[in-house]
């Protein structure tokens, strides 16, 4: 809809107008893009700058080359945080994915009262992560939390302490909280995808007398694959950057047993005040995220035709 004009003006003005027309979209995006450059690109570039300098206690001193990166990559604590995050993501996300898909299929049956159930099931995903942390502190903390007392104590688990204080199980408690928070959302997202599938192939299959399992594996699953991939990838990216809930519940402890790169970067900055190395960590995480984003974008664009 770029060049629809009323009459035929002289050539000169047409050219001037064409030029203006061509500028129009850039004019529309300019305020936003300038803002984003200021609030996203400049901090990023500044983080890169910091990562190549010796910077402690808020004072940037001398150029350090790759020293920050070298000491970070030699730090066992960094590799521990990577493996903690990997454990967290690779256990939580597949479980959320499977349960969410099962839930979506259940919700797709004759369920009454969806108009009330669906909004309520959105609650965990939409609420503040700090409140999620608070909720599970109440449920699981100490030996007096609701579940600690009514379930764990009854079975003689974690006597006199909280599951969050147990080096072996704290991470699994965090994984459980993440599953609690995100499974309902996965279920509703998959359900929305199911509802959007065309009806005709399913009718045809039913007429041909295909069983429900056959319909699921031959029709539903293949048709849903791009959508499943996109939602799964997005959840994967989000799970890597979980911070608030962990900060409230364990803050990386006990020891370093639940310390993810996010928690470690935060500690490096605001507890050890080693800003150079923290920035190096931030840059590495950032690059990893950029790669994930790119994959997400390509998959969503090509397979789902979404963007």
């Amino acid at each position, binding site marked *: *809809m770029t060049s*629809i004009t009323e009459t035929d003006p002289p050539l000169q003005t047409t050219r001037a107008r064409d030029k203006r027309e061509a500028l129009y*979209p850039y004019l*529309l*995006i300019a305020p936003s893009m300038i*803002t*984003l450059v*200021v609030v*996203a690109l400049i*901090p*990023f570039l*500044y*983080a890169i700058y*910091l990562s190549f300098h010796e910077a402690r206690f*808020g004072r940037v001193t001398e150029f350090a080359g790759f020293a920050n990166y070298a000491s970070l990559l030699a730090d066992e604590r960094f590799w521990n945080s990577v493996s903690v995050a990997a454990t967290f993501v690779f256990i939580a996300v597949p479980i959320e994915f499977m349960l969410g898909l099962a839930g979506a299929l*259940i*919700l797709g049956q*004759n*369920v*009454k*009262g969806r108009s009330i*159930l669906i*909004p*309520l099931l*959105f*609650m965990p995903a*939409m*609420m*503040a992560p*700090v*409140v999620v942390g*608070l909720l599970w502190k*109440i*449920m699981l903390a100490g030996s*007096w939390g*609701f579940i600690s*007392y*009514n379930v764990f104590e009854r079975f003689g688990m974690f006597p006199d302490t909280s599951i969050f204080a147990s080096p072996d199980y704290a991470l699994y408690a965090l994984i459980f909280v993440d599953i609690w928070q995100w499974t309902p959302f996965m279920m*509703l*997202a998959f359900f*929305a*995808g199911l509802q959007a599938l065309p009806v005709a192939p399913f009718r045809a299959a039913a007429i041909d007398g295909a069983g429900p399992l056959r319909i699921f594996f031959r029709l539903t699953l293949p048709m849903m694959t791009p959508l499943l991939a*996109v*939602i799964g990838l997005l959840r994967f990216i989000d799970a*890597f950057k979980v*911070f608030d809930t962990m900060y409230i519940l364990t803050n990386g402890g006990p020891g370093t047993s639940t310390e993810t790169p996010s928690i470690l*970067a*935060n500690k490096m*900055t605001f507890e050890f005040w080693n800003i150079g190395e923290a*920035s190096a960590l931030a840059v590495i*995480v*950032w690059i990893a995220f*950029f790669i*994930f*984003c790119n994959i*997400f974008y390509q998959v*969503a664009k090509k397979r*789902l035709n*979404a*963007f």
Partner: protein
Amino acid sequence: MQTSDSSSRSTLFWTGITVLYAVVVLFPIFWMGTMMFKPNETMFARPTEWFFTPTLDHFAYVIEAGFHWNLFTSFLLCTLSTGLIVLIGTPAAYAFARFEMKAKDDLFLFILASRMAPPVCLVIPFYLIYSQIGLLDSFLGLTLAYMTFNLSFYIWVLRSFCRDLPVELEEAAALEGWSRLQILRRVVFPLLRNGIVATAVLCFIFAWNEFLFAFMLGGRTVETLPVSIPKLITAQGVRWGEMAVVGMISLVPVLAVVFVLQRHIVRGLTMGAVKG
């Protein structure tokens, strides 16, 4: 008769399972809700006490400690940042949906990346820059910081709403000789109103829930509701009842939003990839 009987039985079965799941999922929220009214001595009584004489002490303390100011701060900050985002983000979303541009794909990826970037990575440079230019603990500082994730989110999702609009209306208006501004104001924005409201409300909620930026870049002047919650862990012990009150208050807008926006939440949280 037989089929309708079996179908009503299957309705009962599947509804029962779904309701059971919803009850299990929502139970912690319900439990925190009851703690708002629980006297301290029954809060963590062993064995668990299900029935208790309700008290309003926790509410009294929350008001006395000035938490309504935190509520006000949160509200002001979220409204401010969301308003600004709608103002500058709407034309951008429209432009991205309608026009061909040079390096559009790269611009997109940049927008997406600034949305997805882990907040911890951003907060470090933000903190240092702000401490040098004196933007720590200011509304302007936090409004700007919230733009990193919310402006990019807004553009991205609103763009998917723009793409749903039929282009023919704009073409007809152009044929009528309307100017571009008129087309935007009289055709595009009215048609886009639902999308704008839905996306803006989601932005508001993200800002409302935000913790890390508010915690690190805020302070005594700008202290939002989520940041005020950990304050209730005092030297005299944890004020659970008060925490429950503040937590439940912060859930009120969320509760309103899930009921009003339910169709758009999936679309929002999947960056427009899934149309709910």
